[in-house]
């Protein structure tokens, strides 16, 4: 990659990168993300079964 291109790109801090694989934090995020996804799935499945 050329240096000029990379100069204008947002990059994560070391702490952000650390959190991505920090097990206690990720266990919490696993639960939180699942809840968010269930909400989307619930809103998208309306009146599924035949009448």
């Amino acid at each position, binding site marked *: 990659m050329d240096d000029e291109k990379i100069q204008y790109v947002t990059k994560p801090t070391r702490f952000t990168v650390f959190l991505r*694989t920090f097990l206690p934090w990720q266990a919490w995020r696993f639960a939180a993300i699942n809840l968010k*996804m269930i909400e989307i*799935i619930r809103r998208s499945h309306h009146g*599924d079964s035949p009448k």
Partner: protein
Amino acid sequence: MSRVVVLGAGIAGHTAAAFARSWLGRGDTVTVVSPRPDYNWVPSNIWVGVGLMKPAQVTFPLAPVYERAGIEFVQAAAKEIHPEGDREHPTPYVTAESADGETRKVPYDFLINATGPALRFDKTDGLGPEGGNSLSVCLPTHAAQAAAALAEEVERMRKGERRRFLVGVGHGTCTCEGAAFEYIVNLEFELRNRGVRDRAEITWVTNEYELGDFGMGGMHLKRGGYVTPSSIFNASLFAERGIDWITRAHVQKVEPDRVLYETVDGKEGEKEFDFAMLLPPFSGVGLTAFDSEGAEITERLFLPNEFMRVDADYTPKPHEDWRASDWPRTYQSPDYENIFAAGIAFAPPHAISVPHKSPNGTVIAPAPPRTGMPSAMIGKAVAGSIVDMIGGAKAPTHTASMAEMGAACVASAGANPFTGTAASMTVYPIVPDFERYPDYGRDQDRTFGEIGLAGHWIKILLHHLFLYKARLRPGWRRIPE
């Protein structure tokens, strides 16, 4: 007794057939016509493509599953639709051709076209693994071929060679940029794991106007006090991993060691590679249709891109006039009330991303994605409508507009239970609705994304859960699409 025939056994067709069978009485029949003997959980093909899984881990034979479920399976490719029957018999039917060349008629009362895409490697000179110069992960066999090629590259790098990897899409009108994105970040992760990352130059080539578009106009995420476009996060991930990128590109030709491309601003460029995985553009599978007199009526049922006309608004209009209401809700053919389309087989009214053309007139704009969750949702809704119509309903009773449904998506960014990551995303709705959500077209409280190990765990969970569901094991109906 009613006969429901489903063409295709991908995510949309398999879901539709399974629900139709489970909701219909035993006096009714459900028949699946598909040329391939196996079900393929396509989202996991990227892991086959980097050598982490074998094709057998993302596929299973359909015949025993259908036999157990009471679904008739015809292993053949659908060719013609005769929605009015013919002079001898007024019963609608499709013709299907098996691998040995035998053609048979399959009569139906209700038809679901879920034939998915034709992989149009032929649209770009030199594209594709079958006689071309690039690899693919569209099919398990393609993905296994890519994994073998990657293993060879790794061996060369272990001997000290530097190698160049090019990943992305091989035409200006491709879709499924998300799958190619997963492949490039998994590839990078695997090269690190195998200790050769420092000898690899990795480049992304895409038809997206900005990174992170993924054919759905990108998305905006609330983070750190700002509403930030997905392009920022995508560029950040690439920069962090040392992946270079070429955007707004239409690949014109794939030579053995380089691609030639044109960009939206009319410039031409080339990029050399040793290993290229480039996804093809899609079209419909080329079904034809005939009336009772034998006259061809294909253009009444299909658009020129061979996808099926449904209840969408296909009036050509400029991007500024696109509306969420253009998108289909019931997926019923406007000409034949007993024909539906589901998944990739339905013709979208237009793109989701803003379309662009180069000064030469080359269209460089991602086609809209309609795989995974929306495909399954559409298949289920169509099955529900058909079951109700068999029960006496005069019109479809179920809807699954992509402008009214959300999607949850997990994009793998490296597969390892402790060091892997994936981008978990939700969007609501999939097709932006600027009348309901004037700022960004989507509900900002329900559109989110983050990258982390938790996403990888969810991705693994979904792999097993959806294969369990597709095998129609006990309780499969309780697993959402």
